[in-house]
Every structure is written in C-alpha cells, then in structure tokens.
C-alpha cells in the first residue's frame, strides 16, 4: 500500500486503494443520495402503493371467493338437509298410513269374523233347538208307542185290554223306578 497523502491521480493508480482518494468522495456521496431520494420517492409514491393495493385486492378477491364458496356450500348443505328431512317425513307418513290401513283392514276383518261367528252361532243354536224339539217329540212318540205296545202285550197275555189311564200310571211308575 502506497502512502495516502500524495494520492496518485488516475491513470497510474497502482498500489493504494483508489477508494481512499477523497477528491471523488463528495461527488459520489451527493449522487448516491440524490439517486436514493429519487428512487425512494418513486417507490414510496408510485410503485409500493400499487403493489400493496394489488396484493390486498387479490387477498380480498380470494377471501371473497372463499366466502362465496362457503356460503354456497352451506346453502347446498341446508338444502340437502331439508330434502333428507322431507324424505324422512314422507317415509314416516307412508309408514303411518300403511299401519293405519293395516289396522283398519284387521279391524274390518275381525268385525266380519265376529259377525259370521254370531250368525253361525245363531244357526247352531237354532239347529240345536230344532234337534231338542225333535228329540222331545220323538221321546213323546216313544212313550205312546210304549203305551201301545204295553197295551197290546197286556191284551195278548191276559186277554183283557188295559185301559189307557192304567197304562199311563204303569208307565209313570216304571219311569219312577
């Protein structure tokens, strides 16, 4: 490194650092500060507001789009829920109607069955009454036949015809025995 004081003028320039040649300092310093100031003003007033606005607008647009999508999704979800509810409702109603119809049919069938049963019961009762009547009638005939037979037997054995009241008395006595 050469001595600083006699800073070698340009052209030669070997040895010492040309940067320590103070003669060109003020010019460079003033120029760099001017250029910095101009660039600062340019960036601060023109470029940076533009960039930050663009970025903000993009973020707004994105968040807006996301919000819109979220809203649409919620709406679709609500609609789907409603539809599901309606389907469930319809299903419940259908089940209820089916059960009702079943119950109705069952009740109707039971009523008809009861009616038929009653009718049959009546028929059975009537038939039984008829049978009982026929039997008592037949039994009455049996008594007459028995009286006649007894009369005939008495007449054959004794040769004397027994009178009616006597036969009746005998039969009654026999019944009592």
């Amino acid at each position: 490194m050469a001595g600083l004081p006699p800073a070698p003028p340009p052209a030669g320039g070997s040895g010492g650092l040309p940067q320590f040649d103070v003669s060109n300092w003020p010019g460079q310093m003033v120029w760099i500060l001017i250029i910095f100031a101009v660039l600062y003003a340019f960036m601060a007033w023109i470029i940076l507001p533009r960039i930050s606005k663009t970025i903000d607008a993009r973020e707004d647009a994105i968040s807006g789009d996301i919000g819109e999508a979220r809203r649409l999704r919620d709406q679709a979800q609500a609609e789907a829920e409603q539809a599901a509810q309606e389907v469930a409702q319809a299903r419940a109603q259908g089940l209820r109607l089916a059960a009702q119809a079943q119950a109705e049919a069952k009740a109707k069938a039971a009523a008809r069955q009861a009616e038929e049963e009653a009718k049959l019961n009546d028929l059975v009762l009537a038939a039984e009454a008829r049978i009982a009547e026929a039997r008592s009638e037949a039994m009455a005939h049996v008594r007459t036949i028995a009286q006649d037979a007894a009369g005939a037997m008495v007449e054959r054995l004794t040769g004397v015809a027994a009178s009616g009241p006597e036969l009746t008395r005998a039969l009654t006595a026999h019944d009592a025995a």
Partner: protein
Amino acid sequence: MAAIEPMEQFLVRKIAPLPPVVVPGLGPVDLSITNSVLVMLIAAAVLMLFFLAAARRQVVPGRMQAAAEMIYGMVDNVLTGGIIGDKGRAYLPFIFTLFLLIACLNVLGLAPGGFSVTAQLAVTSALAVMTFLTVIIVGFVLNGLSFFKLFMPSGMPLPMALLIMPIELISFFVRPLTLAMRLFGNMLGGHVVTYMFASFVVGLGLFGLEGAGIAKLGLLGSGVSFALIVALMTLEFVVAFLQAFVFAALACVYLNEVVNLGHGH
C-alpha cells in the same frame, strides 16, 4: 502481458465533466458524471423500468409482477414486518429502496466491464450515514428525549449502568462505520480475489503455452483458476444479494430499537 493491477478497476474516471455545483453547507461539489455515477444512474433506471413494467394490477400475476410482489413480500414479511413488527409498514419504502438499490449496484458491479459502486467507500459511507441519521431522526421524532433510554438499559443497578452506558454509546456510534465497512469490504474483497484468479488464468496459461516440460503444468493451474472463478462468481452473486439483505436487515434492527423503544428492547 499487462501489468497486474487489481485496484485499477476501482478507479473513478470522469466521463462527462460538469461545472462544480455549490451544495449548501458543503461548498462547491464536483458533480461530474463519472463511471461510478453512470452505474448509479443505470441502476436507478433499471429499477424504475423494472418496477414500472412489473407493478401491474392483475389479480393473476404474470412473471414480472410475481417477481415484484415476491420482493415486496420478502421485504414486508421478513424485514420490516419480521424485525420491526406491526409498526414496520411505515419504514417499508425506505428499507425496500435501500435493499434494492444496494442489490442492484452489487449485481451491476459483477457485470463484465461494470464498475462496482458499492466497492466505493464513499458510497457505502453515504448510505450508512444516511441510515444512521434516519434512525436518530425517527428515534427523536417518535420518542422525544426518551430516545436516550436507548443507551440506558432499564432495570439495571447504577454502577452497572455507568459501566454499560459508554459501551452502548460506542456501539451505537460505530454503527455507520460497521455498516459502511461491511459492504465495502465484501465488495472490494470479492472483486480483488476474482481479479487475481483471472490474472492467474492468463498468466499461468501463457506460461504453460510458452514454456516446455514442467512449465506445461501452468496450463493445469490456469484451468483450475478458471474453475475457481466460475465458483467465485456464483458466490459473488450470493454475496451481492446477501450483503444488500444484511444492510437492509441491520437498518431494520436499528430502526426497531427506536420504534419499539421501551417494549421488548
């Protein structure tokens, strides 16, 4: 064979001489267009044109717009938002401009035939002092005289405070120096090392071509140096963005201390 002059690339040369301008407080200043100023102007033009083309308002961004928004998001989330917090938005333009200007100047310095403006101590000092003064002004505007609490850690016994305060003061006032030297040193070192390896490529290559026998090994050295330059250039691109990021991140850290003074410092 040309002389090996690794520092020649940092020479500031006048391109368009202009009459000195009298800057109030500084006296006459030579504002001639030099190669350094030219690269600064190119950087400003590149940044302006890129952002004019890229800062579109499409909801679905194209490549340019996506790149611009990515840079914006990086500065907003990592630097001002991440370091300063909710109040960081106000300082976004400052940090954004600082980061992009330094990164652009660093990358232009890597261009073939380019001039590394950020390897000029004058430029890095100007940016560092500007950052330092911004921090101080913001600190006084936001906190008034309680700005001085910055040097007085709360809840510290008096003897300790007496010991700590000078240290805090010194560490505060060397900030512009470290900011300037870090960027300057990184850029200077990278360029000098790249220049040296490039001179090896030529020097060892010629040596190998002209010599015979063992001198042919020079060709091998030339090839290795060339491979190293490729690797170094890759590294230099990383460093170009990294140093811009570090500068901007430190500016954020310093701003954070005065913006959030008193809570969580």
